[in-house]
């Protein structure tokens, strides 16, 4: 949970066309970058990540450090391969962007992907490393591609930067293993000895299987798979917390959440501009949808209220309209609070003497009026009935 600003330096040189990492070196690198961005932003919401390319016409900063995952994923699309990688300039530009980060309390980190030969001297690299260390910038190097000369230089660079093991180097040999899978188990992903974050652990578990988790092949659409994975992870964590309170509904949740997950994935893909909003809304919506489901189920057992049914219809409409989703979220939040206080209310209502005293204080209501009395009795009976109904289904479910 370290507060960190990270700059990722991507190698988009001609060497990236090589297919020794499936499907191409470039694609494998892009997947790894996406995963890293996700992991960083998840481990601490205030973390920022930026991206720059080192080859092509020259070093170019694509995204300045931001916590907006959508922006980062979007800029990965428009990358082109060409030219030669300029490692020294890349690192120096990265250091400069980190220096001008908005939140000065963040630790500085640079992650470099080197997939092509390094043309700089060892001495130059060591000098750069020392400068990084002096300014307390940590450096992670992901070395892939096959070049013996590189190894020595990169190790020298690492040792000149390394301060208390905060910098790491990972060598990824070519082969069938995806670059991202190899990275997941390294300290680059898990942070400095913190142990795997929930994200890394889940990603590793999912990645270990062929990868077809939610009916989506990660190779075909890594972003969608990523979004699904993340939302599933969040959902799992939340469910465990809510398990006691809504024990009988959790089973129904899992059936109901699958279609909802794909809906959320759509929303994140479409709204790249409004991505930060939709991320937050998605999380909030998930909470409220769960509350809605609860209400819907209670309603179907109860036949007491008609409010939630209106909301579930509106939920369909939100698949298209995100503004409406936001408005809905506001109104549903109130509804969710109501359902929580419902059981307390029923106890209060059950106390007839208390109720009649309240009614007496209301203008225009005479507690001795027979119709009022009947109403009170029926309310009390209904609340008892509801409690009885709640208990047997929970026993059945378990």
């Amino acid at each position, binding site marked *: 949970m370290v507060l960190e600003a990270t700059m990722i330096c991507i190698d988009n040189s001609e060497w990236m066309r090589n297919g020794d990492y499936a499907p191409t070196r470039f694609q494998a690198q892009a997947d790894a970058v996406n995963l890293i961005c996700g992991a960083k932003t998840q481990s601490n919401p205030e973390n920022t990540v930026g991206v720059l390319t080192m080859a092509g016409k020259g070093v170019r900063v694509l995204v300045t450090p931001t916590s907006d995952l959508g922006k980062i994923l979007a800029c990965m699309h428009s990358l082109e391969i060409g030219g030669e990688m300029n490692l020294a300039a890349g690192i120096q530009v990265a250091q400069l962007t980190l220096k001008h980060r908005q939140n000065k309390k963040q630790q500085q980190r640079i992650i470099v992907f080197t997939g092509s030969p390094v043309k700089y001297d060892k001495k130059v690299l060591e000098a750069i490393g020392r400068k990084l260390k*002096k300014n307390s910038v940590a450096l992670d190097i992901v070395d892939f591609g096959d070049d013996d000369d590189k190894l020595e230089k990169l190790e020298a660079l690492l040792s000149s930067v390394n*301060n208390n093991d905060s910098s790491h180097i990972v060598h990824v040999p070519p082969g069938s293993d995806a670059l991202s899978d190899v990275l997941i188990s390294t300290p680059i992903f898990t942070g400095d000895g913190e142990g795997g974050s929930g994200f890394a652990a889940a990603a590793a578990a999912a990645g270990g299987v062929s990868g077809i988790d939610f009916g989506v092949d990660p190779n075909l659409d890594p972003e969608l798979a990523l979004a699904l994975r993340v939302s599933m992870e969040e959902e799992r964590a939340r469910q465990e917390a809510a398990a006691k309170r809504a024990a009988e509904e959790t089973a129904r949740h899992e059936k109901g959440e699958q279609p909802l997950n794909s809906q959320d994935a759509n929303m994140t893909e479409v709204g790249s501009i409004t991505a930060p909003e939709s991320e937050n809304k998605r999380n909030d919506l998930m909470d409220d949808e769960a509350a809605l489901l609860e209400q819907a189920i209670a309603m179907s057992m109860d036949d007491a209220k008609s409010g939630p049914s209106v909301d579930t219809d509106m939920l369909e409409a939100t698949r298209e309209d995100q503004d409406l989703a936001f408005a809905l979220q506001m109104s549903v939040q109130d509804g969710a609070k109501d359902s929580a206080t419902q059981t307390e209310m029923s106890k209060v209502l059950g106390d007839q003497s208390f109720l009649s005293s309240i009614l007496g204080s209301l203008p225009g209501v005479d507690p001795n009026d027979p119709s009022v009395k009947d109403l009170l009795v029926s309310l009390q009976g209904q609340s008892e009935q509801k409690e009885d109904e709640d208990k047997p289904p929970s026993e059945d479910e378990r």
Partner: protein
Amino acid sequence: MSAESTTAVQRAQVDLLDFVDWSSVECLNYNSSHSLVNALKQGYREDEGLYLESDADEQLLIYIPFTQVIKLHSIVVKGSEEEGPKNVKLFANKEHMGFSNVSDFPPSDTAVLTPENLEGKPVILKYVKFQSVRSLTIFIEDNQSGADITKVQKIVLYGTTVETTDMKGLKKIEEHGH
């Protein structure tokens, strides 16, 4: 705030250690086993074995924010004769400086430390430049012998607070030849 001593231009100065905001103190290019705390904090700085040491090269950049606005009168920098600091630049109220921008603006004051200073003689600063200091940045440019590592034994800051002068905390500092 009565000026009871008519002789001294400086009134009784206080050790500003109590007003340091420890949560935001930063030091760049220090060796992690010899950190800034060794030179600043009460018990640590008296210990001969504990000192602040530089890492990659001989320069050090120390950022000390204060919990309230203070006036800085003088500083004491103690170190060894060879590896103690020599040229020290002080910047008032400059947040988050880096080694690259130390030369961008003129320092509020510069001190060239002599071996006497390194023994414990305070360096009197340009008081007018340090009238309302929220944070102090100390840039140690090089050391006495030009060695690769700079070692600082102790740093003490003397001054007064702006809003209130805590009359109970007034301490006179011993000065040689003043």
